[in-house]
């Protein structure tokens, strides 16, 4: 598993970021002059109430959206300055996304879902198959490779989602409420898996969560409220 980082060990650098959404004539300030550093190999939990801007921040870090002002640097690269095409290529190389509702393609079997990011690489079919097998083995789902999402439990679907996120060996894993749609047992399994990816494979993980039980598994927790970060929970 490879890692890319800037010289001082900071992988993610958020500097003076503002995000304003325009809804009709109304301007909604979601993030205000926000600063955040995430070190390589860190497992960061991002907590906050609904509407606090957690997902917006995660989208900015993942290059799914652009800040209204400020900079987003990942491994020293200012991603907000990249063109749409280069940003897509950057995401394919450096970021793995894990979504709350798994976001699997319902028409594809688990292995085909995991293979999707590899279609953007130059790997041959047999190389892609090997990568898919490895990723599914890492999440403990080799025996369910040919199953479609509708035949898998929520926990299994999320594990497929994680396999898809790690199959290209990305620098950064971004997880948006990965246990939000799971029961406690399945949620714990997912958190254990994320912990293992962080500790054993050195993956840098940023996880948005509402759940203090989930955030307790992270190495650091930051709280977001009304567009501002703090190290203390919102009261």
């Amino acid at each position, binding site marked *: 598993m490879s890692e890319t980082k800037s010289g001082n060990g900071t992988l993610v650098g958020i500097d003076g970021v503002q995000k304003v959404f325009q809804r009709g004539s109304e301007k909604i300030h979601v993030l205000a002059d926000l600063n955040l550093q995430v070190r390589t190999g860190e497992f960061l939990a991002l907590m906050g109430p609904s509407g606090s801007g957690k997902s*917006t921040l995660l989208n900015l870090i993942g290059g*799914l959206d652009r800040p209204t002002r400020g900079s987003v640097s990942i491994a020293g690269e200012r991603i907000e300055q990249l063109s749409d*095409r280069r940003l897509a290529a950057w995401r394919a190389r450096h970021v793995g*996304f894990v979504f709350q509702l798994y976001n699997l393609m319902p028409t*594809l079997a688990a292995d085909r879902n995991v293979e999707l*990011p590899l*279609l953007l690489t130059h790997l041959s079919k047999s190389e892609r198959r090997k990568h898919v097998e490895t990723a599914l083995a890492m999440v403990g789902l080799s025996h369910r490779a040919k199953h479609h999402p509708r035949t898998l439990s929520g926990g299994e679907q999320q594990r497929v989602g994680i396999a898809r996120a790690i199959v290209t060996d990305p620098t950064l894993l971004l997880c948006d409420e990965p246990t939000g749609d799971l029961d406690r047992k399945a949620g714990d399994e997912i958190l254990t898996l994320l912990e293992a990816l962080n500790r054993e494979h050195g993956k840098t993980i940023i996880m948005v969560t509402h759940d203090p039980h989930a955030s307790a598994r992270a190495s650091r927790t930051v709280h977001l409220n009304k567009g501002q970060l703090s190290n203390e929970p919102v009261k």
Partner: protein
Amino acid sequence: MKYLHLIWSNLKRKKLRTSLTLLSILVAFVLFAFLCAIKQALLGQVEVAGADRLIVRHKVSLIQLLPVSYKERMERIPGVALVTHQTWFGGYYKEPKNFFMENPVIPEDFLDMHPEFILPPEQKKAWLANRTGAIVGRATADKYHWKVGDRVPIFSTLWKKPDGGSTWEFDIAGIFEGKKKGTDTTSLFFRYDYFDEGRTEKTGKGQVGWYTIRVKDPAQAGDVAKRVDEEFQNSPAETKTEPEGAFFQAFAKQTGNIALIVAYIMGAVFFTILLVTGNTMAQAVRERTGELGVLKAIGFTNMQVLSLVLVESCLLSVLGGLLGLGLAALLISHGDPTHGMLPFFFLPSRDVFIGLGISLAVGLATGIFPAIQAMRLRVAEALRRM
């Protein structure tokens, strides 16, 4: 190719909807192929007409006869290489529904004039040796199970014999094949001398239906036609001379402007298909906005997403087109459904390629707007709709 599985799985997402759309495209292309075959049947003779052949008919109308003596006069006109004549016999075999073309001709001249008919030399020899001999095309011979040596009675609706009878008997001396696909092999040709001797004075002895002229130089065909008509100007039977293709076209146009009718029908059919397929694709893209967002999130570029939707639309359309054209080709290969009225009924390969081109164009036209819509999706917004 590596994206094919993804595209194919999307088409299988709503099997009923995809099947119904595919079926409507298939039906449209079956209709397209049949209309092409009918057009071919009605205009096919125009395509196989010789560029070096002129048709000379009575100036008033085709049913007015011309003197047989014109043949020698035409042969003397500069630029004329060969002259032959035919006369409409208007007969049928056993029952009126078994109607097909039978014309009296001068055998050697006729075969020289029409190299598109292939007749074995020994059969040609047999025809020349037998006054009641006739040659028949492969299609009709097969249809009535005739073979060389058979004696067949043909009832003429126009020509009576001196004994008052209308049934003429012919010995099948040969069976001719077409040199290329589209050559009419439904006709029967018999000897003019037998015909002329057998008909009464009252019914036009010594007269023929029309002449065919081969010119020495196709570039001079217009001049030769003019000279022929001038030769018979102010005679009791003035002529109208035109290229063979134009003659057949005028003949076909008696049933209307076929090409235009076909174009109108196909226009209506494909407009409907555009709406049906377009609706399917628009719905398909709307339903999976979130999934398209996921593809973009994991690194698919806008152009890649556009291409995926466009290829899916084209695949659906071309698949429907292929199935429709294939089914139609199978049905059309059974031959003329009217049993003789459409001797040129077949699906030309040119129209198969045109059909495939149209199916691709339908795919592009119906896919382009949903594809642009998918391309313009903003990732973060699309993911919220998952």
